[in-house]
């Protein structure tokens, strides 16, 4: 069981719904975000290309943030989801330094916080807040180990890329291009 996402950049319009839904679902404080939209533009008018990406913690398979945590607060739970146990976190910020995607932040309460693939709702709502709300349905969330899951099927049929593969962390979020 390995959770991951396929995000279709051809459909994403960069509206930020995933950011707000995550905020209201997970009580993310104002001024912070667990996921965000990146806009990249290349070319010269009128030969211009534009890409929107909804980014978050990639729940890497080779996660440097779990490796470097001195107390084990940053750990991996079932499905390969990387989570932080708030009362084990001492706030040393090593994990923040170690993330090539800048996915982590220090919560105002002191511990480190980040996307948790909404694993607190796994019981009854098999998906994440961002995936459930996206108006273009461009976020596919599911079990990458199951070849019949929607996310596995779409990765079979489409070209995709991941971010900063040279950082060597084996991210589990793939962008369909």
């Amino acid at each position, binding site marked *: 069981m390995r959770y991951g996402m396929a995000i279709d950049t*051809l459909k994403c319009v960069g509206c930020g719904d995933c950011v*707000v839904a995550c905020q209201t679902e997970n*009580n993310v404080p104002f001024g912070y975000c667990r996921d965000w939209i990146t806009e990249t*533009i290349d070319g010269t008018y009128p030969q211009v290309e534009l890409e929107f990406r909804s980014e978050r913690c990639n729940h890497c398979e080779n996660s440097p943030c779990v490796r470097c945590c001195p107390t084990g607060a940053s750990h991996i739970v079932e499905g390969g989801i990387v989570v932080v146990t708030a009362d084990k976190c001492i706030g040393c910020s090593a994990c923040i330094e170690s993330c090539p995607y800048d996915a982590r932040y220090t919560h105002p309460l002191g511990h480190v916080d980040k996307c948790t693939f909404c694993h607190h709702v796994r019981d009854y709502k098999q998906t994440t807040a961002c995936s459930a*709300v996206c108006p273009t349905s461009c976020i596919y969330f599911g079990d990458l180990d199951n070849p019949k899951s929607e996310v596995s099927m779409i990765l079979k049929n489409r070209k995709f890329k991941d971010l900063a593969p040279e950082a060597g962390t084996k991210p589990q979020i793939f962008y369909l291009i």
Partner: protein
Amino acid sequence: MISTRRQFIKISGLGFGGAAIAASSVKLAHGAGLFGSDDDEQFNDLKNKRFPTYCEVCFWKCAGWTHTNDKGEIQKILGNDKDPHCYGRLCPRGTGGLGMYQDEDRLKTPLIREEKNGKQVFREASWEEALDLIAEKFNKIKAEDGAESIALLKHGTPGKHFEHLFEAFGSETVGEPAYAQCRGPREAGFAATFGSWIGSPEPTDIRDTKCLVLIGSHIGENMHNSQVQEMAQAIDNGACIITVDPRLSTAASKSKFWLPIKPATDIALLLSWMNVLIYEDLLDLNHIKDNTYGFEQLKEHVRNFTPEWAYNITNIKPDQIRKTAYEMANAAPAVIIHPGRHVAWYGDDTQRERAMAILNGLLGSWGKRGGFYLKEGFKLPSYPHPAYPHPKWTWRDLAKDYPLAGMGLTQEVIRASIPEEAGEHKVKAWLVVGTNVKKSIPHQDLVNRAIEALDFLVVVDTMPMDIVGFADVVLPECTYLERYDGIRSATNREPSIALRMPAVPPKYESKPGWWIAKQIGERMGVGEYFDYEDFSEVLDWQLQQIGSSLEEMQDIGVKNLKRKSGSLYFAEGEKVNLPTNSGKIELYSTELAAKGFDPMPKYTPHAEPEEGFYRLIYGRAPMHTFSRTANNPHLTDLKDKNTLWMNPKVAKLWGFETDEEVYLKNQDGVITSFPIAIRVTERIRWDAVYMIHGFGHTNKKLSRAYGKGACDTEMITNVKVDPIMGGTGMRENFVTFIKDNGKGTKA
């Protein structure tokens, strides 16, 4: 502009009576206790409650569920799966709607303007006093000048309650910016062709289309929920999207063809497409013969409008024009030339929409799968009330210069409020609800003079918007999450109804719109039009009439009903019978000809910017609904100000860099109140600059919106009025950049 008669009052420290709210600026996580785990049971929805509602953040009115936690606070708002407006997915503004409820800058108590030590200030008042004052003034004006002299400027659901009140006491002097400032031209243009308005939501069958043509429409930046969802479905299905836009909009970036057109030349392109389709034999001639009227006249009319002719005007190469025409013809009838929504651009907008409608007519997309479906709505029985009196004059009389005006023209209501400008009908008082006329109406000079001249101005709003500072009486309305409202019943593929019920009691001293209207009505002697104690009685009565009940709707939120008007599409080969003069699709418009206008669109060149000036174009951001959300903390987190998009060549010429701030000055010498940060980007042409509408707020009480970005409305002083229906074209304004605004403040 500060008038001595009615000064703009900055609401500072007032309106905070009532329950003190400890609003901490940091929303903290629940359950992060010293020894607690991060599995937090508060997110287990089985413990939370949910209430059905439909969103009021924009006009799309998506139905959803307001979830409250075990403290009774609103936790989140999710979409209703059964709702055809959103299919369970709200847009970022709907998801962030709880911010409107939580916003500590909300209006809290009624306010009354008074003079104190030579200065005009607001003082807090009780509802009794405020309502009594309003009724007294309105009754006086009704007695002296007639009820018609009291005008209603409105937007959204609360507007319906006040429209009922106004009709009850005898006034149909009404205007909403959504008509003349927004979609009016397309309603007139498509009505002249197909006999009916487009309406809301647009009956475009995007999810099944093979070719979607957007003329300046920026689906994806406008978050018209089901339109965006269906466009994503169309992309999944491999549909061809053609975007005609001087800017690389989000939709343009996902298009097979992006035609980077020179601004103001769209009609030329549309005419040349007609030329290609007709003269290169790409049309279904049976359809033309059976279902259209005026083909021969149109064919003659577009004879010389070749792609080569259009190239000179639009900067789009002839082979691109032909290729895109072939795409459309190939896809026909599953093709949509999208009518757009805000189309009040240059003053000939009804004719441009006519051209778009004609193209749809030629390609046969009206009433066809993948084109335009035949929408159906549902009319709920009205709660019984006495017949409305007949006013001596209505908005129609104010709009009589514009033969095809289908709704009240706000600028005519405003003009009638200025004694020097008014005709025989004069407006003496306004009630403004749900619209910030200081930002939504161009030609602010007129608005300011009107406000100055009015006898009485009442503003009903949830937030201290700019217009609030000019009111004589301010009434705080509660947000949609705290009230009942009319049943939503919009047109769609299938009719549906949706319930709005409160999830939490109104905060502070705010009250629902229906209550305010009823209270005023009772004081004006029309209480018999409000024969109920609570609006839920009205809803229950209406629902009982159609075999449902308030209880059922509270349980399900949305009820989808069966179509009664026949099939969603015309059958193959079915001859159409439309409510036009000829009964057919009018390529040659008899209606326009009869009123003395061009029966077929012509291209007229429009003004171009002088050297050093750039055309100002504006649009939406998907996370905002202009003023309404500019202070919402969830949404200011996503975007808290607008920026000025500028082509790198222009930036180089002027020596500007991204994030550098400038003031804008337009062709009439008006300078923006606040500077705006520049965004150097390849997404915009070199002869235009682009900014998002709805920022640059001047009311300090909007703690998150004050002074952020610049207000484009200030720059729109040259208004090109559409002679057919009175639409106010706003895109013929040009700006230049200055660092020093002459008031001693340098950018």
